[in-house]
């Protein structure tokens, strides 16, 4: 701590004067929700000039802890001290005034406003907007972070990485005390992650206390000064600064995995999923490629709304039993690709062939009948109707069709019976088939969607399945379930398009990986040794194959 402490007191910032003393102390923080103990007596210290990594799978209690620090929730027990002073964080505003800034996983900026306008939004409504002062503060923080963003650019024109940097500026706006980053790397390119790392290190050296939440072990090792592991709401252990320095990446990985899952057998696969070491799929033999392609796209383009990236001139062949991974930073046309295959979005140009038949003019139900299925990433946004029951959602794409409907009359007994069978078969954890689906967890909603899209008994055989970010926002167990399902589907002969922003996932499951960049398929590489590097280059537009 010693050398850095000197830096801190020299730094021209609102950082605590305390020499080496802890900035924020959490003591025995406990938070209960109905049926869940989200935080169980958690005690943590956040020190100035230190990047404190919080690790834990979804549901471990990280989000609740952030919510408490950001003033959005009140702990049921325990206390928060700032420089030894006990404080109560009653609202997000109070949290900001204490110098706590939070950057959430998703960008929360107004896309049509400029950078500076976004930053000035936090002021009270009766105050005059002081542009000059805001600009001064922006320059100050830009220098601190080493940014090169014009304050007058509309946020919508910035890359996701830059938008996140603006979020960091906003988080530090009221004073550089504690910066909380909630899974900040999940949306970034490798280059973006590297830049974020640089920013974090600069801030740390200026004496900011940083809480860095991630589930990627490599990043934890690369950036962290101290690790703490949460599991089922409890702090199960950590690695402090001195020990961390002395350990190799392998040792850290082993230790964290041991902490997260204990030493019990049977958690091995969780550990593999987490560390990105999941067993690779047995690749299909090249011989099968000689058959007729199941799905072919020929120069398919779409038209995008304002702010959307359309698909441009996409062509590929997909064979039965093959998994084509689609890599790329979110928002590079992946959604349009998925939708144009499913029939949800018209193709402006180009042809789509399914087993030798042209299908680009067919509707969603017609293509579904022919075997094209789409598991959307927006499970609540478009995949389901949250207020409708599980049963309604299971049959959502069958409305009006026999055997569940006869002459347009709903046979509710059959609908509920079918739903019960699907719930049983796909192990959906729900109180009843009549429970509104919005009350289920993400993993269970995903199971309902899988049941709906992969079911064969009602509409005929599935042939082409598009998965759009199938494990996004799921906990480890559900992630593994979804990946197993994709693997088994491919082994059974499904032609699969797998869109994902998780490179590990693509490397684990795909035969070939295409990279989307600005609406184009920048290249398709075979998933073999060295694919990572090629994909990384393609993702940033640095190379074309």
């Amino acid at each position, binding site marked *: 701590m010693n050398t850095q402490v000197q830096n801190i007191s020299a730094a021209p910032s609102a950082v605590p004067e305390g020499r080496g003393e802890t900035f924020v102390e959490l003591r025995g923080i406990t938070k209960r929700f109905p049926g869940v103990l989200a935080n169980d007596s958690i005690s943590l210290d956040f020190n100035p000039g230190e990047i404190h990594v919080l690790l834990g799978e979804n549901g471990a209690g990280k989000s609740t802890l952030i919510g408490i620090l950001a003033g959005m929730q009140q702990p049921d027990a325990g206390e928060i001290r700032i420089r030894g002073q006990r404080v109560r964080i009653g609202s997000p505003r109070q949290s900001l005034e204490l110098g706590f800034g939070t950057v959430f996983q998703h960008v929360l900026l107004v896309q049509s406003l400029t950078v500076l306008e976004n930053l000035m939004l936090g002021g009270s409504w009766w105050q005059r907007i002081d542009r000059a002062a805001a600009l001064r503060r922006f320059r100050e923080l830009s220098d601190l972070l080493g940014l090169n963003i014009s304050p007058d650019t509309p946020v919508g024109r910035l890359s996701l990485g830059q938008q996140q940097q603006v979020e960091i500026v906003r988080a530090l706006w009221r004073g550089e005390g504690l910066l909380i980053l909630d899974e900040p790397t999940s949306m970034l390119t490798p280059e973006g992650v590297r830049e974020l790392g640089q920013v974090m290190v600069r801030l740390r050296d200026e004496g900011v206390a940083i809480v860095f939440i991630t589930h990627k072990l490599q990043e934890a090792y690369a950036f962290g000064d101290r690790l703490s592991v949460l599991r089922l709401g409890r702090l199960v252990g950590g690695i402090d600064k001195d020990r961390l320095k002395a350990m190799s990446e392998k040792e850290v990985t082993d230790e964290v995995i041991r902490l997260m899952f204990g030493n019990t057998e049977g958690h091995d696969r969780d550990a593999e999923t987490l560390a990105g070491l999941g067993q690779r799929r047995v690749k299909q033999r090249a011989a099968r490629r000689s058959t007729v392609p199941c799905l072919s796209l020929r120069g398919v383009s779409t038209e995008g709304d304002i702010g959307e990236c359309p698909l441009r001139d996409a062509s590929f062949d997909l064979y039965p039993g093959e998994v084509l991974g689609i890599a790329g930073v979110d928002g590079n046309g992946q959604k349009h690709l998925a939708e144009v295959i499913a029939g949800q979005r018209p193709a402006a140009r180009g042809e789509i062939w399914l087993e030798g038949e042209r299908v680009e003019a067919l509707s*969603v139900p017609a293509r579904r009948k022919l075997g094209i299925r789409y598991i959307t990433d927006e499970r609540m946004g*478009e*995949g389901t109707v949250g207020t409708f029951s599980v*049963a*309604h959602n299971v049959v*959502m794409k069958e409305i009006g069709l026999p055997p569940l409907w006869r002459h347009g009359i*709903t046979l509710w007994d059959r609908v509920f019976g079918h739903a019960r069978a699907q719930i049983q078969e796909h192990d959906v954890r729900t*109180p009843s088939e009549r*429970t509104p689906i919005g009350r289920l967890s993400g993993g269970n909603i995903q199971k309902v969607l899988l049941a709906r899209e992969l079911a064969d008994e009602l509409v005929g055989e599935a042939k082409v399945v598009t998965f759009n970010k199938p494990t996004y926002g799921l906990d480890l167990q559900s992630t593994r379930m979804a990946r197993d399902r994709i693997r088994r589907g491919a082994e059974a002969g499904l032609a699969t398009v797998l869109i994902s922003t998780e490179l590990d996932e693509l490397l684990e499951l795909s035969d070939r990986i295409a990279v989307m960049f600005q609406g184009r398929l920048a290249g398709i590489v075979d998933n073999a040794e060295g694919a990572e590097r090629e994909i990384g280059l393609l993702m940033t537009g640095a190379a074309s194959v």
Partner: protein
Amino acid sequence: MSTGSEVTGSSSTAGRDRLLAVVRVLVPVVLALFVGALILLSFGKDPLAYYGYVVRRGLLSPSGLEATVTRIAPLLLIAAGLIVAFRAGIWNLGVDGQFLLASVVTAALAPALMGVLPWGLTMLICFVAATAVAAVWSLLPAFLKVRYGINEIITTLMMSFLGISLSNVLVKIAFNDPATTVPQTATLPVEDRLPRLFDTTINSGVIIALVVLLLVHLMMTRTAFGLKLQVVGANPRAAVHTGLSVGKLTYATFAISAGLAGLAGSVEILGVWGTMRADWNPAYGLLVIPLVFLARFHGAASLAFVVFFAVLMIGGESASRRLGVPHFYVLVLVSLLLIFFALVEYLDQRWRKRSRA
């Protein structure tokens, strides 16, 4: 009207939920009557006397009850149409224009056809023509919504103003009966109107309305079409994802909703008035919209609110003559009801959020 029983949670909590739903409706009603009483007191009127009179005249006296039941028919038909629209997420606020245009068409057709065609066929043609005209009047807002995504709240309201004016003009210019001093259409003789029930002044329109409401209920809960409409209403993006033809469903919704408003106008003319005066505009649509909201788009609850409101209307009209309380005081009660309903809803949401957090 909802798929309520299918959608709501497990059976153990269903009973409690239902009880809470009743409480959520009753509390605003009691509060509205109470504050309404305070307003009456401030005018020096005896609220108990007023409420008592309203109930006696609107519900307990034979002639009052007959008038109330007669009034229910158009209100219920309009409510049935609105339930379909609102459940599909389409805010058809142009009911009054649709209602009046259908009324004009009915009032013009019925006396003219009656001499030529048999009674039954005349009635049928009037119903069909009125429904069709109202549905056509909603075509433009539907087209603008489907094609350009223009908000139907604005367009249906504008079309409503146009429809009201146009029906006025039609009565004065096209269908004016020269035999009368005030501009109005030719009058359908009493014996040619909708048959009366038993020995009362109640016409059979109320039967039509109840049957239509039941059919709408069955359509929404038992058919694929109804379920599709509800998907569009609950999550339009899910409808696109599922591959529903949202455009066609939107047209159908507009047509059904406006058509039933038209049928209401037709029933009112054929059952009650037999003629249409140029300045006649009961503005039932704007009165029924809040009721359907209060009933949460539910058929049985809408029926209850319509009956309640019809009693208030008929009783209030009598009371205005007898007690000197203006008849639009009924509107004050309805708006109080809406305010308290919103308030209870808000408090309920907050309470739920807190109990969850």
